[in-house]
């Protein structure tokens, strides 16, 4: 019983990382209706930026903050430079365009940082003992960030004028435009914010694992699964499905380790076949 509890706790920390990254994708989709395949690349960039900044500033908090902001700027530049020209095209074209961006970012990173995965020294936050097992304190940092983000997003969407604009745009773009909302400003902001979150996720993983090529490809699939499962563009849905995927993977690793590879696809397929619009429906 204790083991299962611990496994769920471990799953929670995984889930929160998935949530931070995939809510960025969800947010971008909700506002712009673009499925951004390059989101994973932004995640990778977040890790590499933070790595470079850490070597320079030697401060983890500073490098995470600056690194993810820098990724936000890269996202903004991509949107202004390339993606915005494809808003009028069907979703599939944007997928292919952002796939092209993925290829470009992969090689740029390889060119700048080389292909050897890199690590920073561990933060040395230590562990706490829960249910007779050791649990890294850093995982609490990730969980805290995730929950904090949840609160911030709620605040942002419900209480601020920007949130109102965003909700208006999500529900009806034409009406929003008629009411004097400049959608391009909002699109640009959503890409900045979404990419910032991807970068934040990437930077947050740095003390746990390494900055490596191809790390974006692994996370993008999870982000897609979570975004689709929760309901495209639905932030609440993204939160719930992050939890489902994170915890079920963790439990699967305990009960049926050899099936962990497929569990998230099984869940996704089941959810979609029963409820194609996702758990909470499309925003």
């Amino acid at each position, binding site marked *: 019983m204790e083991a299962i509890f611990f496994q769920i706790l471990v799953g929670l920390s995984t889930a929160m990382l998935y949530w931070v990254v995939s809510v960025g994708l969800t947010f971008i989709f909700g506002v712009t209706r673009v*499925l951004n395949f390059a989101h994973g690349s932004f995640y990778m960039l977040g890790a590499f930026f933070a790595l470079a900044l850490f070597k320079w500033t030697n401060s983890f908090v500073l490098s995470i903050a600056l690194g993810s902001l820098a990724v936000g700027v890269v996202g903004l530049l991509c949107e202004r430079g*390339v993606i915005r*020209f*494809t808003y009028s*095209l069907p*979703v*599939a*074209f944007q*997928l*292919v*365009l952002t*796939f*092209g*961006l*993925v*290829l*470009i*970012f*992969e*090689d*740029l990173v*390889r*060119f700048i940082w080389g292909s050897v995965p890199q690590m920073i020294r561990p933060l040395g936050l230590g562990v706490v003992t829960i249910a007779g097992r050791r649990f890294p304190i850093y995982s609490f940092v990730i969980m805290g960030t995730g929950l904090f983000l949840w609160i911030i997003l709620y605040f942002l969407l419900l209480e601020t004028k920007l949130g109102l604009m965003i909700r208006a745009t999500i529900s009806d773009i034409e009406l929003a435009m008629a009411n004097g909302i400049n959608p391009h400003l909002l699109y640009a902001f959503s890409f900045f914010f979404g990419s910032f979150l991807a970068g934040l996720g990437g930077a947050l993983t740095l003390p746990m694992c390494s900055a490596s090529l191809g790390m974006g490809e692994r996370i993008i*699939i999870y982000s*897609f*699964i979570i975004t*689709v499962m929760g309901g*495209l563009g639905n932030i609440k849905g993204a939160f719930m499905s992050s939890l489902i995927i994170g915890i079920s993977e963790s439990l699967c690793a305990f009960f049926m380790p*050899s*099936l962990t*590879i*497929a569990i998230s*696809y*099984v869940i*996704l*397929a089941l959810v*979609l*076949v029963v409820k*194609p*619009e996702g758990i909470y429906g499309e925003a």
Partner: protein
Amino acid sequence: MERLSNKFLFFVLTSILLLTFALPLLSGAYTNYIIIKISILSLYAVAFNIMFGYCGLLSFGHAIFFSASAYTLGVSLTKLNLPIFVALLAGLLTSVIFSIIVGFLSLRHKEIHFAMITLALSMLFWGVVMKWRSVTGGEDGITGISRSISMIAYYYICIITVLSCLFIIYKIIFSDFGLLLEGIRENEIRVEFSAHSVVKLRMLAMIISGLFTGIAGILWAFLDGAVTPTIAHWSFSAVPVIAALIGGPQSFVGPIIGTIVYVIAEDFITRFTLYWQIWLGIVVVLIVLFFRGGIVGTIAKVVSEFYHSKLREKYREREN
């Protein structure tokens, strides 16, 4: 205009055809190999485009049909030692069965939901392929699928098979059935009100698409003599998507052009640099940005505009 472009197209196609058949006599083995690859992937892309271009359904699950037939063939030949015709039939049958299953689960849904369900099913299938090691060989896949004929002979077999498949697909698309599919893409509800079951029509399209994808899968399995899980992975489902979008999903030749452009660009780039991704990425981005709606669509538009402006000039001259 229509007539002219048709004649031109006919001329181009015939010369390409003749060249393709004469090529093994003129060029090196590698060129032949690449042409086989292009032809197989073209068939894959065109078969995929039955769903995408004509039904308006973006499938991310065609790797299932592709790998289902390839794996069935591989297993029947190397593990069960069945005769080749039985293996071929079994392969195609598996593709059809899987297209029915996938269709049954996904066809009620549309747009991005359809894409995502097919993606999920495709990854599920990939998981099975990876895990069912006693049959599929896991990550290593199945090797030793013997083609037992020379590459040149195989070249002709591939070209002829692909061309006849393309011809059949062409006939299907420009038949009444194709008109109905186009109708579905245009206006689904109207098709329903015209007393056609959209789901049934789509299912039929899915089966046809799956069948031809299966044929491509079989040709692929024989080409390298090996089947590995990479062809079941979602990224292999993305291959025809990219081809169709680059070439132009609204036309029959679009996916073929897309495949040719992509394969040749990739081949050209990897010849010179290990940093192939960045160049390929730039090519893809530029094509999406500057050939909006695909190469074929854009070229057709430019040509027709050119033609119209010529006409206008003529009128102006006459007026003057």
